[in-house]
């Protein structure tokens, strides 16, 4: 068996819908790819695009963002703002030379555990096809000392 490239993907979920969807998938013992590591936010609207940049710069090959379905946001309409940021972020990443397909936005309600699992699986395959990101990092220590390339708050 040849060594298959296993992408590392960071996932941001909102506390009310998509994190509960992940819990629902777990309770139902639905199996899905282990490549995604989830970070809980209260709302998809909390997603600062710098989080995505930090994740990609830190070694992730892809980022998945999930929130409540439009109209169902626990905070009424903040998922729309997440959508706006996501669209602009994709264009920005393109400018950086990063394939915009490396980030994905999905809506998942608290009951959609099965669906979330499917989405994770298909996203992992998509990123696998794109290959490792290999975000360039400074190789020698001299440059590493200066925090110029670090993305900070």
């Amino acid at each position, binding site marked *: 068996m040849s060594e298959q490239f296993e992408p590392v993907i*960071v996932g941001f979920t909102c506390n009310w819908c998509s994190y509960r969807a992940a819990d629902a998938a777990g309770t139902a013992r639905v199996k899905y790819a282990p490549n995604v590591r989830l970070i809980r936010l209260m709302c998809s609207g*909390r997603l600062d695009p*710098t989080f995505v940049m930090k994740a990609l710069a830190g070694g992730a090959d892809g980022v998945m963002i999930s929130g409540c379905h439009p109209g169902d946001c626990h*905070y009424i309409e*903040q998922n729309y*703002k997440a959508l706006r940021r996501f669209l602009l972020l994709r264009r920005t990443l393109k400018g950086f030379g990063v394939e915009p397909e490396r980030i994905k936005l999905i809506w998942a309600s*608290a009951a959609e555990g099965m669906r979330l*699992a499917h989405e994770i699986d298909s996203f992992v395959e998509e990123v696998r096809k794109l290959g490792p990101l290999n975000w360039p990092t400074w190789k020698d220590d001299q440059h590493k000392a200066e925090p110029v390339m670090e993305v*900070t708050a």
Partner: protein
Amino acid sequence: MSAEEKTPKEKIGVYVCHCGTNIAGMVDVVGVRDWAQEHLGKDGVVISRDYKFMCSSLGQELIEKDIKELGLTRVVVAACSPHLHEKTFRTAAERAGLNPYLTELVSIREQVSWVHTDKAVATEKSKSLVAGTVKRIVYNEALEKLKVPINPNTLVVGGGIAGIQAALEIANGGFHVYLVEREPSIGGHMAQFDKTFPTLDCSACILTPRMVEAGTHPNITLLTWSEVMNVSGYIGSFNVTIKKKARFVNEELCTGCGICMEKCPLKVIDDVYEAGLGFRKVIYTPFAQAVPKYPVLDKPNCTYFKNGKCKACEKFCPTNAIDFNQQDETLNVEVGNIILATGYDLFDAGKVTNYGYGRLANVFTSMEFERLCNASGPTNGEITLRDGKTKPESVGIIHCVGSRDKNFNNYCSTICCMQSLKFAHIVKERTGANVYEFYIDMRTAAKSYDEFYQRILEEGTLFVRGKVAEVTDAARNPGEEGKLIIQVEDTLAGKQRRIPVDMVVLSSGIEPRADAKQTGKLFGISCSSDGWYIERHPKLDPVTTMTEGILIAGCASGPKDIPSSVSQGAAAAARVLDKILQKEVELEPIRASVDEAKCSGCRICNNLCPFNAISFIDDLAVTRINPALCQGCGTCVAACPAGAINGTGFSNEQIFAQIDGILMAV
């Protein structure tokens, strides 16, 4: 605060749970424990333990002991979902004197051990998730819950049986309730029924005493013919705008004598109470026992409003109570909690074209049939065909119309099997006709329900197990002329049947209200994909929602029978009473605040808040956030280009550190 200022290092304790074999079966728990001790020491981990069941009292005591003896300043538990036990561990830490917000729970069960199949990979993932939370928790701050006062008033939306029950419970507890109902009278669908299963109690007889109690209770303000227009605020202090539509009747003067209704010359089809089967006058009360007794003038149909003539009601009213100039009133009320008991709508059986409802005269829906049976209905309780005269000699009752059906609604409407059996009994009792029931399964699962089914079987109703393919008037065989023919596969006999009957009753399913979604948005709660309101937990918390202060009861959250609706109304009331008695409620301290020194007054954040928590202080030219209104979503935190807004609990430092940890090489 930047990274440098955060050292001196915290003392972090890591606790990895086995959860029996739930986690340990797929994750090398001891391996994770050792790894944390070895590799996260530089981040502050001073002790790393594993235990079979962290949530047990012994598990919790482990944490408490370490806090006291090792002076831990942060606690990370790797176990199940925070939605389950975050509170447990936070409370344990608090008992040992550590601020609860310095304890985090990371899920390696729902998100790792239960969903992956390779132990090595699952262990690696668990290590990175633990690393993420350890690095994050360094930046956690000690937070205090916000306490807000609870306004002891309550709003109950919907005057059906669930709403009435809830209102009475709270009112009897000594607190004030505003009961808002869209129709001219309270009572809901239960007021339309004839008899209720399984006792065959007369529906109105058991409902009306409750209605009268609610109508005369000193602690209940009844607002019928009214709708909620706007809700703002948060638990403990909601501000609700209610529109009281004009009745065109002065409630102070009206005595409920009913002369206006008698003298009104115009009849219209009553689509609501009589389910389209009967008539009412233009000025009307929906039924004789209406509460309140004041009639309502139906303006769109009124001759006076259309062309200035008539005014018969005004002429004959002995107390001059008719007021054609009455205007809609708007009221603002302050309440601490809101209960939504808005009920259901009947599935439109016309959608199932092969059953011919709307085309074939003698096909009736369940609600139409209830009105036929009801003594105060259009036929005074006589069961007749659509001509209003002929008694049927055979009746077919079809179950699951629009329910358990991929083409319409997937779910089971719960009450129709019992309702169909009830109909069978009433038909046999009053007409002696042959009754056929066409079912898929018999769902008679509650107390005395199955006994009722046995009774109906003994009464001689015939049951055919099969989903009816078609109701047609095209006769094919002798004996079918002039009848409605039910074509069905009798699955138990293994043959097709064509059964000619005089009358067909469709047990239509029940659906969420047509405007349930809009109503939900008004109150800030969501609907499931079927349209029912979503409860906080389907098993353990069926009457609260994800929004604090908004509760749901009755069919608004899903199909259920009368006893369940009553129970839910009472349960919601109990919750509200417990909040009122505590006098204040604690709010999670996850909210945003502006560092005014960093704010440049760009106002990008100002329009982002749906809770109106963000305001601009003109003279200082900075933005300020009201911590009581802020719900903690963090959108403004993400939007601020200067990073001037701090989001407690989910700050940028915390998230960045968590990303670092998650991506750490393990």
